[in-house]
């Protein structure tokens, strides 16, 4: 039996604990904002926060998150008030197909906690999520905007 908190809600899981957290979140918890892209920790589409750290859920077995608190893209905003990263993403009009963006946003939100004012080199070092549509130019601008939105309040 695995006990975990997902977006503030306590949950229990008693199935195959080897199952990646990704499939638990998508199929059992119904949180489909968490995306499947590669299954081997390469693309970052499945990024969620585990106790505040950005983690690729496709290679994280459910067994490993016993007692952990998980936040997905669905739990990032404060009700209708978007997280600064989400807000910046809209203002910079980042998304194209949008499939990678939940993972990108989760990765950036975690990075800004550690590095509130990232340089371009910080971004290059920290962000390794793949965007197949190639939205990187606006994505970079949105990271800077999110950092300043966050600082401003």
């Amino acid at each position, binding site marked *: 039996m695995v006990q975990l908190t997902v977006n503030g809600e306590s949950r229990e899981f008693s199935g195959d604990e080897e199952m990646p957290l990704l499939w638990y979140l998508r199929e059992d918890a119904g949180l489909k904002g968490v995306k499947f892209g590669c299954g081997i920790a390469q693309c970052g589409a499945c990024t969620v926060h585990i106790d505040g750290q950005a983690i690729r859920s496709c290679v994280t077995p459910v067994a490993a998150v016993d007692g952990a608190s998980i936040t997905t893209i669905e739990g990032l*905003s404060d009700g209708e008030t978007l997280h600064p990263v989400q807000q910046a993403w809209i203002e910079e009009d980042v998304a194209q197909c949008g499939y990678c963006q939940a993972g990108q946003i989760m990765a950036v939100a975690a990075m800004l906690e550690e590095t509130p004012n990232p340089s371009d080199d910080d971004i290059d070092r920290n962000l390794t999520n793949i965007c197949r549509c190639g939205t990187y130019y*606006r994505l970079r601008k949105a990271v800077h905007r999110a950092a300043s939105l966050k600082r401003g309040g």
Partner: protein
Amino acid sequence: MDGSHHFATRRDVLRYASAAGALIVAAPLSACSRRPGESVAIADGPPAAVGAFIVIRPDETVLIAFPNPEMGQGVDTSLPMLIAEELDADFDKVETTQMPLELKYGDDGEITWKYAIQGSGGSTSITEHWDGLRRAGATARQLLVGAAAADWTVDASEITVAKGVIRHETSGRTTTFGAIASAAAQLEPPTQEPALKPRDEFTLIGTSQKMKNARAIVTGKAVYGIDAEMAGMVHAVMARCPYFDGTARSVDERAARAIPGVREIVKIDRPPLDGPYSVQAEGYAVVADSVWAAMKGRDALVIDWDHGPYAAETSAGFKDHCRDLLSGEGQIVRDDGDFDAAFAAAATTHEAHYWEPYVSHAPLEPQNCIVHVRDGSVDVIAPTQSPSGANRNIARVLDRDRLSIKVQPTRLGGGFGRRLSTDYAVEAALISDAVRKPVKLLWTRDDDLRHDFYRPSGMHHLRAGFDADGKMIAWTHRLASASKYYRRPNMPETNYYRAELYTDDFPAQLVENLRVEYFSAKSGAPRGSWRAPAHTANAFVVQSFLDEIAAARDEDPLDLRLRLLGEPQELSYEQHGGPVFNPGRLAGVLRLAAEKAGYGAPMPAGRGRGIAAHFTFGGYVAQVVDVEVSAEGHLRVPRVVAAVDVGTVVNPNGIAAQLESGVNDGLSTALRLAINIEGGRVTDGNFDTYQLMRIADAPREIETHIIDNGDASAGMGEMGLPPLAPALANAIFQATGTRIRNLPIGDQLSA
């Protein structure tokens, strides 16, 4: 979402559609409770079909459906702009949603579009809907105005509309779309086509608009195919034969069936050898209660595969095969003047070979599809660029009437041409037919990379001759490649070239003696349309070769291009994107990009600035690429400056987004991407070896400069990609003296 915005009442809505250019009825909507980004959320079967429509709600919001699938190219915003312009709606109050596939039998008894074309491919969405969607908007406006005129007993011609507000100037009376919509819904649609605005009266078309469904995306609520569900569905994952056209000799299902949750195993047969693809490969589908059980079941299958007819194929062998072909004589597909004589008489000659590898589409959302086959009907929810193709191919394999098959396209997590093929939808249909339940088929990344329809690979051989006055008098482009036009009905091998060489491409008609020659190479690798199909390869080789010529002649690469292009003139262009190619417009984007980029300024050591331009499907794009190459051969592209002429621009912000996407896609592909083949199978199974570009390699500056001379609108989904690779190669040559003739670049600079 709160329920008050749903279409609780039926009389407050208008429904219009543009069918074959004509107008349809105003009619109440069928039940529809969708909000943008939720278009196919969990439903018992696909939601009710609602057709091409405009819905005006009492709260003044307007819901507009876009006919073509959205895959990131921005049609969820640009197509509704066409309607909203003529409707005079307040675009800030417009929400947009994906239209389901709507077909009908035409007067000739053949299946045809019910309202409008509904495929996404070839950058055609704007062009093909330019008139029809504007007419749909104008008609709705006319009804709204008519209802107000009747209410006020004034003449409709005295009424003006702006941003959803209807006004009678002389009496000062006003009303709004939301207030008058139910009265308008009672009116008969006009019998005459409404007049459309002249271009100088546009207030929305030509303004920058942000993507309509951004909020759903950033909150994780946008629904892709992989997120859709049907009640009672089961999950399927397949083990496909990894060898091209191979078959299963035997299968041991015992371990797979022992996995908890695994219900059934369904065999899918390979299509006939050399026949059209229905599915791509032979395989076994594991049907289970959950995705995870299906994946474990798939891994537990023990299958002995026959290696098939291409068991000996390797990447290196295929390259040798293409080189061998080029040493002989091919099929001459264009022959102007006398190339041989002119080349022999030339004062100076140039020659080079170039290589393009197979590459994969790799949309980030792996293929998936939900199908429910019942006795009299089939429901399909699919992330597809071609909902009608899914409908047609499922109808064929199940032997059903096409109108009994309902297809709801979802938002696509990328397309790039991969989702023009519908093999994954056919697989899901065959599995559902076998188990008679709604089946959600999921491909893993492995499945996607190993079973793609790859961009064709081939070797190009170019030669050019100049006379003593420096005039180009001879040009030939010879290509040996595995065409994507194969295994198609009614497609003789003599037509294979049509997919790989567009014979009216530059410099045709601008050089007197020109020959284009094609060699059809054999390969087992499945091929298909990859964003800007043959233009990616041909722009690379032609624009690189021009640079080589310029260097050999000690002439500036831009000057050489401009003098070859010459004055504006209308040349005939019979391939997609025609009927006209105007070399003056290509020269125009070259000049603008060069000016904005500071082209020609001296560059410090280790830096280069390259230029290239290409005419792609009706659009003209030039790019100037800057590179820095370190002493160790590490490459960086700090800046790309582009100029774009795609005629009348609907959404400049969307043009820039697609240009940026094309630049990054072009760079990613040129840097590291190739699909490798050993022993008749693809060896790349995930992003660890198929290394898509990440942000660290992406240009920090991308500038898009737009020329809009009011010409007919072309699309922008593909045009931004072809010039990147040659402009990059040209910049690398300037920085290092190394000429890139083989793609990808890989470690060629550090070797």
